[in-house]
């Protein structure tokens, strides 16, 4: 979208925008260091912070590729995540391959079975499960593949479709971004969870908006492996809390509440916070300047 000069001086407006963006990238990259997070053990279990509902690019209305998600998860202080594309499993398998090859947070392959009446997260599965199956058959298929079945954002309209199958679920999202939409929506998730014994799940339903791990699950594992995480989910050894309320295994909730820092990303150093602010201000200013330059009528 190049063109002639707009400014009259030696420093054009294009150069100012470019300089702002350069400062934004340099400051943002300088602040982008991995966080150090020592392993946490409570009640004899290793505690992992996990996000089990993450959408990759492409084909799943996500913005980051599976390998970028895995790296970003580490920056957000997550120990594990599940990449769960809509109605397919390739993104999760790609992310799991990246984890096995390069390390970082444990990546579990999965799928969000995105049907017309309910959405089901299948964790630890390799083969795509059809969205045309009713809930009970979809859950059985997840289990047949050795996976764990989690009800995704089970708000009231989906309840009657869960009814015949709810006893077969392993977990349900009790906290996820839609809980912030309105108190009534948060209550619907909590009611669904409290009606039956399930693993409490907090997920970000990450599509690119907001931070990865915005809502997270604390998983109490015997071993920090994908199999260890799936075993803990089947045994309902999870805790979710939002700063005010906690859900999950009654024996583990008090332990988790003594460590509220586990439910949020690790704190940033003052220098990193200053660099992030600089990156944000310069980045938004530079991009806004570019849009204004493109939109300026005399350039057409």
């Amino acid at each position, binding site marked *: 979208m190049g063109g002639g000069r707009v400014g009259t001086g030696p420093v054009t407006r294009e150069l100012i925008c470019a300089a702002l963006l350069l400062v*934004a990238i340099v400051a*943002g990259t300088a602040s*982008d260091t991995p966080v150090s997070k020592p392993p946490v053990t409570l009640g004899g279990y290793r505690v992992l912070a996990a996000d089990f509902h993450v959408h990759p690019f*492409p084909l799943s209305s996500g*913005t980051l590729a599976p390998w970028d998600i895995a790296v970003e998860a580490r920056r957000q202080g997550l120990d594990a995540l599940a990449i769960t594309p809509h*109605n397919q499993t390739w993104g999760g398998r790609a992310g799991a391959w990246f984890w096995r090859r390069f390390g970082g947070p444990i990546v579990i392959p999965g799928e969000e079975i995105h049907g017309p009446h309910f959405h089901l997260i299948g964790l630890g599965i390799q083969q795509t499960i059809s969205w045309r199956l009713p809930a009970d058959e979809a859950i059985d298929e997840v289990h047949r593949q050795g996976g764990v079945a989690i009800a995704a954002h089970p708000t009231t309209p989906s309840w009657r479709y869960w009814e015949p199958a709810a006893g077969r679920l392993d977990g349900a999202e009790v906290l996820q971004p839609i809980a*912030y939409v309105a108190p009534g929506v948060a209550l619907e998730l909590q009611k669904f969870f409290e009606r039956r014994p399930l693993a409490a799940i907090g997920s970000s339903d990450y599509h690119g908006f907001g931070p990865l791990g915005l809502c997270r699950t604390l998983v109490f594992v015997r071993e920090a492996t994908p199999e260890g995480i799936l075993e803990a989910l089947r045994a309902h050894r999870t805790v979710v809390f939002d700063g005010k309320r906690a859900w999950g295994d009654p024996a583990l909730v008090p332990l988790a509440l003594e460590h509220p820092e586990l439910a949020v990303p690790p704190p940033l150093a003052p220098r990193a916070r200053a660099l992030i602010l600089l990156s*944000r201000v310069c980045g938004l200013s530079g*991009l806004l300047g570019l849009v204004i330059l493109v939109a300026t009528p005399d350039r*057409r």
Partner: protein
Amino acid sequence: MTSGRITFRLVAPAMVYWSFVPLVQIASLAIVCRNRPPEMPFRRTVDLFLRSNWPLLLWLLLFSAAWACFPAASVIPWWSYRSVQFGSAGVALAITARLDYRFLRRDLKRTPRDAVLQLVAQRLLSWTPILLIFVAPAAWEVVASELGL
């Protein structure tokens, strides 16, 4: 929107992945605007055409700024209003369409009827693959469910 900052780690790969959007737009433009005035080479045509994307870029920038500058829990309530999401996107798309229509009329010397037809054709040719790449599996479920397929 993801990290509240601009980092090389996120910007570089995202630029590569999302480059398919302008490439698809250019390809659709090449198909739709084959007959151009002699004073309008294809390079110049592309340059002028892509400039009319500014309303969409501004829309994206404003939403990114909201996610970057405010806590997610305070952005989600108003972001979840479909009228906010789709209403603002609709306004941006309408302004872009108006600019493209003017470009077709003024710079490519199309008649009003041809300008409308070519605008619709360009949108179909570009937005169909873009949406497929972005949301195909879930979109297919929604379409198939609605149509009973």
